[in-house]
Structure formats: C-alpha cells, structure tokens
C-alpha cells in the first residue's frame, strides 16, 4: 500500500516543566496535498503541535515524520532545511516594519541563495497573486491588517514549500479579510500545497468538507471524511 501521508505523528507527547502535559500521546496523519483544520480552545495545544512540526520545540516522547524526515533524529544544523519545506503563517504576521513589502517577501528567497533577478521575478509574481503588486515599496505599517497578512502569506509561499502551517492566521482580521485569507489558502492548496490551518473560529470549518482535528485536554479527535 502506498503511504500518502506527508505528516505523521505517532504517540507524540509534550510536557512542560514542572508537570504540564500539553499533548498526550497524539496520533495524526495528514496526506500530501490535503487541507485540514486544527481547532480547539485557547491553550488546547494547537500552537504547541505546530511548533513541533517546524521544530521550534521537540516532543517529550513519540515520533514525528514530516515529508519523509524523522524529526527526532534531525540535528540542529538540519532544521533550517526542514523550514524551507515547512512554511509558517502567524496571527501577528511577523513582518519587519522597517523593511518594504518586497524586502519582507524576498527574505525567504535570499536564504536559499537565489540570484537577485530570480528573486525579483518570483516576489513580483507572488505579490501579484495575493493582490499586492501595487504595494511593493510600502512598509507593513502603511498597510491594513488584511494586506499585512497577505504579505506574510506571500513570504510563506514564495519559496514554494510543500507544507504550509497557518497558526490562527485570521485571528486579527475582520470577517471579510478572514474570508479572503481562507480563499487564498484554498488556492494554494489547489496548487498542491499541504495545509494545516489552525483556528478556533468555528465559522471557518463548520460546513467544511475537509477533515477537522480537534484538540482538547492534550488529546486529538478527528471529524470529516
């Protein structure tokens, strides 16, 4: 049988000192090209789970495999290369206010060592894709919240990663901007990216045909097809 999963967790637990068990023996599979929601109340462990997936934290026990890489055997020097495959979008955008939109997005390509001409071409393409082609020279502070999040999405996808983790990306946006971001994520998914969309906004996944992973008390349950 062909294994289609791009993310697999087996018995993953995460304990914070002194005795706070954030995740308890999680098992989870996400298939390649899938779009899943990760939900749960505040403090249920959504961000912790995502942090484990991009190696910002290590599990206390269990095994995590991302795109064929066993994260428990990953050395610190290999982590940057994992993060080129796993992009993250945050609720607070994490943009550099002193840099322009173009510079904020191009960072993801500079770390890959691409030539200036290649960087310019790809950044322009991606910004056009998120509807910001006219804002290249603006700084984040000159943009609305929705536009800032679109810059963050552009930065996350410009290096064409196979996996995108979105950690409450619509948490700071009104409902119209939220729908825009969700649509953008669906477009990225349609182009082949695997997406884990963490949110506690029930409206976003209430009528979805996608799988929903719900975290509660450090345990996970899945609903959907």
């Amino acid at each position, binding site marked *: 049988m062909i294994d289609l999963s791009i993310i697999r967790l087996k018995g993953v637990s995460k304990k914070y000192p002194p005795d706070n068990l954030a995740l308890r023996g999680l098992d989870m599979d996400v298939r390649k090209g899938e779009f899943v929601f990760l939900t749960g109340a505040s403090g249920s462990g959504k961000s912790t789970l995502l942090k484990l997936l991009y190696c910002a934290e290590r599990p206390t026990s269990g095994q995590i495999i991302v795109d064929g890489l066993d994260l428990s055997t990953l050395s610190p020097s290999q982590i*940057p290369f994992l993060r*080129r495959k796993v992009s993250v979008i945050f609720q607070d955008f994490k943009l550099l206010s002193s840099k322009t939109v173009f510079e904020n997005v191009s960072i993801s390509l500079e770390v890959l060592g691409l030539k200036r001409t290649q960087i310019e071409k790809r950044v322009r393409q991606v910004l056009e894709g998120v509807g910001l082609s006219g804002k290249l020279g603006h700084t984040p502070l000159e943009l609305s919240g929705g536009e800032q999040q679109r810059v963050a999405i552009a930065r996350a996808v410009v290096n064409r990663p196979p996996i995108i983790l979105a950690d409450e990306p619509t948490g700071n946006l009104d409902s119209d901007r939220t729908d825009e971001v969700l649509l953008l994520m669906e477009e990225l998914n349609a182009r082949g990216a695997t997406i884990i969309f963490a949110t506690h906004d029930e409206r976003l996944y209430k009528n979805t045909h996608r799988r929903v992973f719900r975290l509660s008390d450090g345990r996970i349950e899945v609903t959907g097809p």
Partner: protein
Amino acid sequence: MTLPSLLKRALADLWNDLGTHMLTTVVIFLSALIFSFFSLIYFNLQNFVEHFGTELGLVIYLNKATPQDRIPALYQKLAGLEGVQAVVYISPDAAFKRLASYLKDEKDVLKGVDPKFLPPSFELRINRAVFHLDRLKRLAEKINRWPEVTKVQYGQEWLNKLKRFSVLLRAVVLISGLLLVLSSAFVVSNTIKLTVYAREQEMEILRLVGATNGFIQGPFLIEAFFQGLLGSGLALAFLYAGYRYVETLMGASCLLKGVNISFLPWTFIGIILFGSIFLCVSGTALAMRRFLRL
C-alpha cells in the same frame, strides 16, 4: 550564501544603524588610542635606557702607581671581556688635556697643577646587542676587584632610576591595558547586545524561513570585524600622526636633537589590531549565541 552577498548585507546593516555602530567604533578607538599611547611611551623609554646605558659605557680608574708596562696587558684583558666593543686608554696627560678643554675659558685654574694629578683610566664601550643593566653591573663589580683598579663608574644611579621608572611604566601600561580591555569589552559587548536585540525579530523571522546560523550570524560578524579594524586602525593612525608631529618638534629643538624616538613595533601594531577585532567579533558571537539556539 556567498561572501559578496554577506558583505553587501553587512554594509547595508551598518548604514541602517550607523549610530549604534559608531558608538562601538568610538569605544574601540579611544581604548586602543590610550593603550597604544602608553605603550609608545614605554617602548621609547626602554629604547632610551638601552641607548643611554650603552652610550655611557664603563669608566675604569686605575691606581696612579700602576706601572706603565701593565697598561697593554690590562688593555688586552679588558678587550677580551664578553660584551666589550671598544677600549680606549686615557693617560693622566690625556685626561688633563680633556679637563682643560672642558673648562675652556676657566682653564687658568689648572695653572701650576701637576698634569699627572689625574689617574690613568680606561673607557669601555659596551656592545648594544648584549647590553643589560644587571650584566653591566656584574661586569663593573668584576673589574673593580682587579688590584690595579680603584673605581669603576657606569652611571649606575641614573640607570637604576631609569630602570625603576621603566618597570613602573610597564606596570602602568599593563594595568591600564587590562582595565581598558575589560572596560571596553564591557561597553562593546553591551552596545553589540543592543544591536543584536534591536534585530531580534529579524533573526526570528530569518530562522523561521530557513536561514542557517551562518546566514544569520555572518553579517553581524563582518560588521564586528569592520568595527574592530576601523576603531583600532584609526587609533593607530591618530597616534602615528601625533608621533610624527612630536618627532618634527624634537628635530627642531636643540636640546632634544640627539634623542631618537621610534614608533610601535609592527608586531605590537598587529597585536592591537588583532586584539580589537577579536574583542568585537567574539563579543558579537557571544551576544548572538542565545538567538541561534533553535
């Protein structure tokens, strides 16, 4: 990631945060200037003591009753001593003539005085390469034990005073150097920390998009290298300009015309440059360590 791209990023960062980087450079400049200034004085005093001691040489006064036929044997004995470069015999008559020439217009006071009233003597010039004050002292004591010798002079009081002063100055240079290194290390590490903390978010984002530690740290280390090099280089250039100015002044002064001064040795210049660069680069690396943990 190539060196030109790292250089480009480092120069851009330097330009964007010129104020903080200038502060670090000024601290390095002042510390290196004060330390190298004291070192310059110390090196020149050392040179002076050496030069002065060699110039003085040894004067050996013989017993007036020393037979004339013993002089060649004593001459040979002195010339054969280790470290002796030249021996000159001064007979009582020659000594009398020298005294008369020193007195110039006052030489009349010597009228009626026996031209042989001064003792015969030898003047020894010491080889500069083997000169050392303690060695000179031992040599003088050895010669002084010879039966024909009544007194040996080598300007020991002056040399001892100069030696004590140069030891004191060396202690001042070493202590001031140590204090300067400690204080500048403290100030530099804190200004570097400020720079690093100011760009904490940038480093966090770089780590999230998959930048390696080398990519993140590279420009910071290059900036630190330039700060150390610029600060200490300017200090040495400033000191050299001051040195040339003093040298010109001394050349014009009748009193100091014969005194030679020299600049810091190349090895010492290298140590100051390397030390300053090392201080900045290691301070940056230490300040960044926290941010590079994944």
